[in-house]
């Protein structure tokens, strides 16, 4: 009959894996796993980037493109940055602001009027996205001056109180109460002489 030995007396195999080595092995395995998963994630990102024109555009066009522009002109003033988006409308609005008093009520052409389609030399007043400012937009930039669009004739009592007329590519002279000797294409005139 075999004798059952208790575990206390059972001979043990010598420990060929000391604790420090096990711990080091675990850390190494953990690092390898981390690197494998990170590499896998990078592969996924790369595959999405390579196979999607639109996600590439998000990175290169939308974000990097604008970021590079910002890096190129970091000291651009507010006016200069506005001009990047609104084009020649910005110096035109600044001109009106300089030449009219704060109490002025200015007649402006209605948005989308034909006059905006005519360009004189490089002075194109359409915004980059082909929309022209409404009277809200004029009010935003010319405050406290008030701006009334020509298509509001009869709708607002302010129409009869207009003090100045915006001249846009020749539009506006018809609203002046006098003849202009040397008309210019873009500017602002008082309504009455």
């Amino acid at each position, binding site marked *: 009959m075999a004798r059952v030995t208790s575990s206390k007396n059972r001979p043990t195999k010598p420990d060929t894996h000391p604790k420090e080595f096990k711990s080091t092995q675990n850390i190494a395995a953990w690092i390898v796993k*981390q690197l494998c998963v990170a590499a896998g994630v990078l592969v996924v990102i790369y595959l999405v980037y390579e196979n*999607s024109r*639109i996600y590439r555009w998000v990175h290169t066009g939308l974000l990097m493109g*604008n*970021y590079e522009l910002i890096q190129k002109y970091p000291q651009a003033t507010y006016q200069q*940055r506005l001009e990047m988006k609104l084009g020649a409308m910005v110096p035109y609005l600044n001109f009106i602001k300089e030449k009219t008093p704060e109490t002025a009520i200015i007649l402006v052409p209605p948005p989308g009027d034909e006059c905006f389609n005519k360009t004189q030399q490089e002075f194109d007043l359409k*915004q980059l996205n082909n929309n022209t400012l*409404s009277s809200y937009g004029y009010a*935003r930039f010319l405050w406290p001056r008030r701006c009334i669009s020509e298509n509001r004739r009869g709708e607002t009592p302010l129409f009869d109180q207009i003090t100045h007329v915006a001249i846009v590519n020749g539009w506006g002279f018809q609203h002046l109460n006098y003849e202009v000797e040397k008309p210019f294409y873009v500017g602002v005139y008082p309504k009455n002489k």
Partner: protein
Amino acid sequence: MLYLGLFLTFVLGFVLVNTLSLKFSITEKLGLSFIVGMASQTLLMVLADGLGFGLNVASITILSLLVMTAAGLFLFKYRREEIRTMISRKPEFPSLSLAWFLLLGIIVWLEYMNFTKCLYFPTFDRDALDGYDTFGFLMAKEQTLRHCSAFSTDYFPLNQYMIYPQLIQLAYTWVYLLGAELSKHINALMYLSFLILFYGSLRRVTNPLASILGTLFMMITPDMLAWSSMSALNVIHAIYASMGLIYLFLWFKEGERKDFWISAILMAFNVWARADGLAIVAGGVFVLLVDSIRRKQARDLMIWTAVSLSVYAAWSILSKVYGFKMQSSFIITHLFWDQEKFMGIFNYMITLFARSDYYGWTFYVFAVALVANGYFIVKRKEPFQLLLSLVASFGALFVMYYQMEHWGGLELTLESSLKRYLFCYIPILWFYISNNTLTDKLTEAVEHFQRRSH
């Protein structure tokens, strides 16, 4: 003064969120603070103006400080022990992986470029110059809401901007009052807060890897990212709308009352940002209605609906008292059947879903996730309420566009309005994509694989 003022907004939101509950995670609190703070501050601005103090930094700051003091006293009286326990508890750091840090680095880099772009270019988009930014600017210059020239029909023609809810406009007023040259600090901080909040809400239901992957892909939705740095209201509205529904789902899933309340509050702000947000509210109401029938009690439905509609109802009454009006309503109030219009909207919606230049792979990945999880959806092991609220609010949105007059033509309205309205659904779709059963199993397996063995 600008940064102090924005910090005040953040602190106001932080105190209010903690007053609601101390149990939100730190990422949720960080994300919610500016989002809740800004909306709350716009309500205080309406109050300040209504009480005759006008819109100025002093009156808004004093009211904000009063609210913060009241909230602080509440916290001190009723939550002192809880705060003490929270502070004394050792912070628990989740086990984060190299992959997670890599993805975080990508998000930080992309958002840095987006944030910089937002603050560099002034407002130029048409909607903002025709409405939101101009209204905000004029209210700041004239220091009044009620008597602002923007609402005067003697000056401006009757249009819908006059009766629009005023969250965005008043938010812009705040930064203009603080001396900012451009109002886009609001847009920049809102989107940043939103990214943090979205991640925090995902972490409530899934592992860090799925959460950060979902946040990244949601963030880079092309048209939504592009509009996040513009001054139009669409992305800000989408933040309130989507997080409102997500928190409603979290309440169904985890049963924590704080989620119910924050959901209702975000829904109220959703409609305060844009009246069309009622379609999103309809989604939440539908889900709560189904739940009410199942549980045979309607208390939660009534409370949630009342809170969601409270701000809009108050503004509707106030704008009538102030005499704000628009030319004519563009809602058709009688029922009718127009097959051409119906199919026009339906076909356009389907075409939109397929537009990867607007929404990236969002709708495609969502469709795959739905099909792949079909079994679990049928067995109700999926985030069922989230999907139900999506379907219901889509239906409400469809009805809304069907019952609208399209003065510029149906196609123009859909192209300009519906295309950007769908931003409200993008975060919800990515929330589902990151949190469904199969994604969970896959990402959990990866997380488990990369965990350290002992």
